């Protein structure tokens, strides 16, 4: 009886162009200047960060972009403690949803400069930007968020 073939090589490599679109481009270009650009929907008053070109609820173009300072609070987080291929930093580390003040949506990023066990929902955080020569049209222009203390108390 013929032994079944159980494995065979299937080497695929596919390169793609991604098109950011006009809405995302506003946000990404802002990041290269250490600016967080948000946009508001005049229909439902949702403030998007990052903003698309139009509101997916009202289907109308968003209002002109305006800048937020990036300070906000941790709305939820988890501690990644498992190593995986391609990981950029050693576990354990904190991945969080940040709710920037003035935004109706949340931004996902790292929270560092704090022990994971000291992070909590509602913690006030601020962005830590990379140096000038590392700035790019990328969320990696923000190195991470870190706790910010207003006179010792959380916001």
């Amino acid at each position, binding site marked *: 009886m013929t032994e079944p073939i159980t494995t*065979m*090589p*299937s080497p*695929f*490599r*596919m*390169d*793609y*162009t*991604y*098109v*950011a*679109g*006009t*809405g*995302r481009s506003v946000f990404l270009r802002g990041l290269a200047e250490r600016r967080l650009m948000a946009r508001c929907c005049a229909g439902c008053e949702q403030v998007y960060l990052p903003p*698309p*070109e*139009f509101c*997916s*609820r009202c*289907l109308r173009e968003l209002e002109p972009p305006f800048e937020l300072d990036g300070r906000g609070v941790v709305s939820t987080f988890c501690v990644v403690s498992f190593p995986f291929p391609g990981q950029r930093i050693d576990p354990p580390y904190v991945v969080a949803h940040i709710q920037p003040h003035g935004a109706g949506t949340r931004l996902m990023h790292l929270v560092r400069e704090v022990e994971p066990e000291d992070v909590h929902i509602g913690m006030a955080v601020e962005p830590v930007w990379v140096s000038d020569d590392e700035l790019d049209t990328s969320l990696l222009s923000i190195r991470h968020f870190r706790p910010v203390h207003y006179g010792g108390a959380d916001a």
Partner: protein
Amino acid sequence: MRDVAVVSFAQSPCQAANRRDDMADILLPVIREAVYAAGIGRDDVDFVVSGSHDFYEGRTFSYIESLDAVGAWPPISESHVESDAAWALAEAWSWLQLGEGDIALVYGIGRGSLPADLDQVVPAQLDPYFLAPLAPHRDAIAGLQAHAAIEAGLTSEQGMAEVVVRCLDAATGNPLAQRSGQVDVARLLDAPYVSSPLREHDVAPIGDAAAVVVLAADDAARRLAERPAWVRGLDHRMDTHYPGVRDLTTSPSTRRAVGRAAELAGFTTSDVDIAELHTEYSHQEAILTNALELNGAVVNPSGGPLAGRPVTATGLIRIGEAARQIRDGNADRALAHATSGQALQQNLVCLLEGDG
């Protein structure tokens, strides 16, 4: 059966590469145009269904991004096919037949410009055992089919060039075409081969566009369109996956689909005034004309895919264009054909009719 009709159609211009708009941005104005032309609001749409392919987008569940342009907030009946959007229209037609609602919005997004090299992508659509390891050129299987079709006497390089000349000439009347103009056969035949006997002009130019069709049933259709393009018959079939098993000069699945569609419609393709065929290559027009038994119909008055092929929107555009000819009063009966897969592997036939 319920009477279901195309009441509205819109598409964005076929572009070789749209680097400005993301998926939702391409789609939103086209949905607006189609919905506005039908004289309805978003809330009047009972069902939304789309077609696109992750191979072209380079990420999984890519079509989810397009839902931002739909207003996809619950409760919504929504679906997607991983294929040409003509198959999404088939799903919408079935859904309307079930009587769940009266108005369906069908859209197709095709962005063939995103893969940096289609020669990397096409093998991924083939079987991983016998074909993919060979890494055939994107047009190689079509070249096999074209050569076989010429050898069988169905067409010739000259005949294929004549198809291209006719289509590009027709496309001069289509402002949304990617390619158009007056060219002559002798000049086309001077061009080098891409994958012999195919030259560049024989290969439908791949690009980016979105298309939207609004379907409505019974009284809704009569209310929304002055002259609805009734879908009288629709069927789709597929041939086996491995091209080596098939006689590439014939298209049994097209023959079977048109047979069933004609049975539903109560008229045959010899009664059809115009036919929009999803010809990804010029030689396929002869194979399809045979399989469909077209007799005197004007083929691809829009210019057809040889004037613009926004990948998975291309088949839906055939239905939209065929319906347009009826709605504008240029045709009483029309045929639309869509294909998917290599060398006409899967085929869909839609027979449309205007009120007499």
